[in-house]
């Protein structure tokens, strides 16, 4: 699992590469728990290379969801693979989180 981030203005784009399982979710949790992330108003998550997400990985996003919502930070997932998206859908997370197909769409929604 590799986590990369690119920053522009008030947007941080986090790219996830590999499998997000119990061990790698700790890294992601550290990344999202970092206080500096609250300085951004938009968090875009690039899931293009995310091949698998376990319940622990989902748990990390769920645990931070409320915090971001309270701080009015937009969390948007894009480029999600079909099987990963399926996991989000089955769990009902697609109704709670914003999942779009492309980066452009993500930027547009973020700027709304």
């Amino acid at each position: 699992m590799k986590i990369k981030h690119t920053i522009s203005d008030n947007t941080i784009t986090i790219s996830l590469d590999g499998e997000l399982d119990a061990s790698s979710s700790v890294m992601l949790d550290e990344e999202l728990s970092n206080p500096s992330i609250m300085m951004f108003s938009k968090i875009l998550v690039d899931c293009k290379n995310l091949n698998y997400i376990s319940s622990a990985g989902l748990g990390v996003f769920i645990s931070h969801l409320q915090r971001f919502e309270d701080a009015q930070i937009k969390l948007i997932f894009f480029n999600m693979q079909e099987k990963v998206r399926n996991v989000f859908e089955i769990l009902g997370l697609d109704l709670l989180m914003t999942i779009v197909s492309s980066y452009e769409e993500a930027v547009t929604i973020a700027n709304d």
Partner: protein
Amino acid sequence: MPQKDRIKRLSFFTASVSWVLLLVNVLLLAYQRHTGEETLGQDYLSNLFSVVFILSVFTFQRFRLEPHATAGFTKPLWHLFVKGGLGAYVCLLLNVGYPNLNLYWANPYLLDIFYQILFGFLVYFLGKAFYTWRQFILYQKTKDLQTQWKWFEILLYVSLLVPLLNVEYMKFIFLMLDLALLLAYSVYMSVHLRWVAFLSLDRKWGSIFLLTAILASVVLFGNFLFQYSDSPELVIDYTDNPFILLTLAFVFTYTLSSFLVAVFSLPTSKVFEQKNADLRNFQRLSQTIQQGQSEEEVYSILFDSAIKASGADSAWLETGEEGRSGIPPAHNEGAEQALMDHIKSGLTRAHKERGTLHQDSIFLEGDLRHNPAFVGADLPFYSLLVMPLVSTKRKYGHLYLLREVEQGFDQDTIDVVQSFTNQTVLTIENLRLVQESLQNERYKEELKIASLVQDRLIPKTFPTDTWFEISTYSQAAKEVGGDFYDFLQLSESRIAIIIGDVSGKGISAAFHMAQMKGIFHGLMQQDLLPDEFMVQANSALSRCLERTSFITSALYIIDYKMQGVSFARAGHCHTLYYNSMMEDTFYFQTEGLGLGIMRDASYAKRIHRLHYDYNPGDVMVIYTDGIVEARSEDQDEYGEDRLKYMLSQTYHLEAEDIKSAIINDVTDFTNDTLHDDQTLLVIKFKQRQPNN
């Protein structure tokens, strides 16, 4: 050792008796000489008693002082001085007092008594000294040395025979030669002085002091022995006893040589002590693993040992690897931040100038102030040694040592410091391995408990009835443990079935499973509808589930009187269904959010109830994601489509066979590798028949 004790007691007794007899005999002889009267006193008796006395004292000491001495040498020296050497000083007092006493109380026997007391003290001292020196000579002995000593002892004892034979040995040239050879032998024995090397500096000073005192005793004894030997009043004199002379000579030479060697080895002691300390520190480093100490302690030992070994005036240790969080342990000995910055920037320049970009080699500079890379920093130091802490896998940090003198680090010091750092790296790596294996062990234990809990929570008996068949399958993966299912008979015609998957693994997952089971049994007493149950379960779990955990679940209530199923899905996998009337296989696509994701009242909006009237012959397949997310070797997922296809091929079979067919297919697909827990329930509805 009762045998030894007996010998010691016996020899002590013989010594006392023979000395008293000797004194009596000497006095009788003196009386005979003064008065001319015949008495019982005989010259040969004096010789016999003295030999018996010497022999018993030596035997006593021989068994008292075992030849296997420990490394503590000052204690035996102290004992020798206090118990033996002080006799000479007692004789000194007597000697000082003797002329005065003789003036007032002229007694012809006084000198004889004094001489016998002196003889008693002397023999005791010689015996003690002789066997104390044996301990010292035989310290770290070789086989040869042991043999040589044995012969030395035997030959010395043979010389005891001379006075018994009552020969004037001085007249026999061959005897003289023999004795001279024996004297040479004792000088040779005196070169065995290994023990001196094992003394620390403080102990060496103590030993020198004691040796001086013992040497004074030897000289005093010898002086008294010869001072009165020519007195006409003396009946017997021991200066012609070769044994006494030889042992006295031996004790004198050994004491003197020990003293000289101790004095001249004083300047080198510090070096030996340093080497010993290095060795001990090295040992401490390797022992830290067994003692279960932390990495911080290992670094501390390295830091202290390296400073001591190199005599550095200032030093600091930088540790902390890439990719490891936490505050690196700071070790600093008289180095300020500004100095550290200067050195480090100078170091970078020096590396550049030398063209050695490879920074993980030892850096040594003996003339810092004139090195262009460090010029301008105005450092109070001349010598710098930078030792990297590296293994083949990782870099652990750098050790910086500074000295005020030029060329302050010699090759020997560098070697020692390097072996310290190597050992440290090894110790740290081993320490981590040990911790890792402990962690694994604990984890395994936890999983064992978790799977035990899981096993207990899953029902072993299934509801049996005439209107449906049910077949279950449950397989826990090694790493993940969170699947569960359960049944509850609500009334005669209604049964509730729950299935779920708890996120997380190990104990915590098993714990939440147990909670979920409790919630199911508790809440369903109120005969709730599936969606109502989910709302209440969500609210109950919100209070006990940690933030990153959630549970997916689906609840089915089957009513066979009404021939209907109502159910709700909370983030759980879709339900697969075969409708026998339509001959159609499909998934119930309902919406529903997992439990514990939204922890407020708004959850109620996210859950839906579905009701479906079943027909006899319909099949319902309930499962967890371990089935559809089962992966083949090529990382393909088993998927919903394949599961659906399997049911469409097997719906006509009995529930048990449908289950077996699906599980066999999944196992074939994954080639028997299990990534996640797998749970599968197959329910086949049958024609309603009256219960008898």
